[in-house]
């Protein structure tokens, strides 16, 4: 590659790929919302609407050998990482062909093949795990990076502070990616943090940091390149705050009593897909038919994923207790 590792590669193809990934997540989740109202998908469903640029900007910068830890709002991360959409959709249905055998659902997507260490639904719960993955890497002398995604709400948890400290103290290769969408369920950032400039928290732990416009996929990718490069070279943690916004309800059970419709509308105008697409079109990098082609491809992929999930099967109840323990070990005494 002629471009230095920390510089984005702004070819037309690359930009089309970024756009496609964002559209792919958006359309996939629109379908999920519809399937939720049809009761095909149950439980909690947390959509990433408005935040797609973060996963799309960061994850492709990682290598195959790198690790990812995500939250319950992780459909986009899994898709961009390369977990097949069919397996993700089957998981949303709870079918055994799903990426977690159907047992996890929307909040617990796992995929060993892509080092996708799960959607964790305990806020802050993924951070110590990421530190541990990086510790193993450090002790084995490898150079993989662990990228850990979490919301700004997690910053109030003790586990955030403990993890930041450990990663810095032991010099572990963790990329902390804070997806600051300004609300933790109904609690606005200003109501949960005394210091609302999240990026500044990294300084207390002597962790290098950067805040970036989380609605600008190119800016995020550039920042992610700098960040991943820094972690890989220095073998130290790095903190990237992506300032974004959740355009939809927290989950499907949220009346959104805590914010004005006008505020959401104002953010709609800044949303990452239209913004990037408009910029590409006005600079004549892409044309309207590029977008319709992308949409057609994505829609076909979604149709296939839904068909795969529909055709999927329920794990037999007789398997319920399987894998509570490893099968190679003798069964524990009852």
């Amino acid at each position, binding site marked *: 590659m002629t471009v230095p590792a920390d510089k984005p590669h702004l070819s037309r193809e690359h930009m089309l790929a970024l756009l496609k990934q964002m559209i792919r997540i958006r359309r996939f989740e629109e379908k999920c919302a519809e399937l939720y109202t049809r009761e095909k998908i*149950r*439980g*909690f469903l947390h959509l990433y609407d408005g935040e797609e640029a973060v996963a799309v900007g960061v994850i492709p910068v990682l290598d195959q050998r790198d690790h990812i830890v995500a939250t319950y709002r992780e459909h986009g991360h899994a898709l961009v990482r390369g977990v097949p959409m069919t397996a993700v959709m089957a998981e949303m249905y*709870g*079918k055994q062909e799903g990426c977690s055998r*159907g*047992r*996890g*659902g929307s*909040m*617990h997507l796992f995929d060993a093949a892509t080092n996708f260490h799960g959607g*964790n*639904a*305990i*806020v*802050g*719960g993924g951070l110590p795990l990421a530190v541990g993955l990086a510790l193993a890497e450090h002790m084995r002398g490898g150079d993989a990076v662990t990228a850990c995604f979490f919301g700004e*709400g*997690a910053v*109030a*948890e*003790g*586990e955030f502070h403990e993890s930041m400290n450990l990663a810095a103290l032991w010099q572990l290769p963790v990329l902390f990616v804070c997806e600051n969408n300004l609300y*933790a*369920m*109904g*609690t*606005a950032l200003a*109501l*949960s*943090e005394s210091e609302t400039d999240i990026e500044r928290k990294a300084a207390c732990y002597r962790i290098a940091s950067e805040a970036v416009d989380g609605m600008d996929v190119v800016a995020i990718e550039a920042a992610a390149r700098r960040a991943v490069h820094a972690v890989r070279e220095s073998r130290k943690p790095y903190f990237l705050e992506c300032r974004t916004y959740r355009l939809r309800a927290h989950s499907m059970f*949220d*009346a959104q*009593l*805590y914010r004005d419709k006008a505020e959401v509308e104002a953010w709609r105008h800044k949303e990452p897909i239209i913004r990037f697409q408009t910029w590409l079109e006005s600079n004549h990098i892409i044309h309207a038919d590029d977008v319709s082609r992308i949409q057609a491809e994505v829609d076909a992929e979604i149709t296939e994923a839904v068909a795969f999930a529909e055709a999927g099967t*329920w*794990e037999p*109840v007789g398997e*319920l*207790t399987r894998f*509570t323990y490893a099968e190679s070990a003798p069964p524990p005494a009852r």
Partner: protein
Amino acid sequence: MKQETVKAQMIETTYREAAKEAIRDAIKRDERVFLMGEDVGRYGGCYAVSKGLLAEFGPEKIRDTPLSESGFTGAGIGAAMAGMRPIVEVMTVNFSLLALDQILNTAATVRHMSGNQFGVPVVIRMATGAGRQLAAQHSHSLEGWYAHIPGIKVLAPATLEDARGMLWTALEDPDPVLIFENVMLYNMSGTLAADAGPVDIDKAAVRRPGHDISLITYGGSLWKTLEAATSLAAEGIDAEVIDLRSLRPLDDATIMASVAKTRRAVIVDEGWRSGSLAAEIGMRIVEQAFWELDAPIGRVCSEEVPIPYPRHLENASIPQAPKIVAAAKAVLGRA
């Protein structure tokens, strides 16, 4: 519990509304009472129990907290120690594990460890239980674990009366009281006396009298057990259903009186079987009523797995009426 004599005026309500009314009433009765927890205010409570209370009482009394279970539970414990009467709401029992240190190592120990110089009159409420397909980090029933801890009291309101009445009595209690609200009960509707008020928090209740077998349960499983008792009745088996109400302390007297009458017992507990509350109850029956028994004790507990997401596996994981019927019949030798 007031009943009969004067026919009280009845209102249609839900478990959720009854729990909300209990909070409202407590805040009005005692200026030391306030509610704190994640999203109790602006969001309206994760299970909408506190919806509307922020507008009524303001942000000092309905205090939204950051995501800091250990921090805010500890703060509630501290405020209680200093004379306030906080109601701490933890979204679900799974998240309470982040606050377990404060609950176990501070709240439960302080009175004893300080030689009775300090007490912690805090009430901690949380949702528990499976049934909403929320998978393995949001669906467990860990109230039995909490019932292991000396120094706290553990309640499991299963009826509208108890959802309405236990909170005030718990707030009056000088020691920490944990209240577990089964998530499947929030939408349960029914009638409640318009003047329903505080209830006792130390007695089990006989929810259905019977002669052939004692079905001992609590919380969300009460309704499945009553359903099972109805099915058993159709087969000529007259089951008595005991609602424990308080998991710590356990009301041994009511349990033993029932077992002495029916001579048979099945315990229904949404916790996992190994090391469960059901195990504790079974052992107490063995210790105190062994010679009254005509058959081995039975148990219906959750399967020993993290609760899975798909409906059919979730249902298969937790106690259900047919399993309770089968267990009762097995104990009666009628399987």
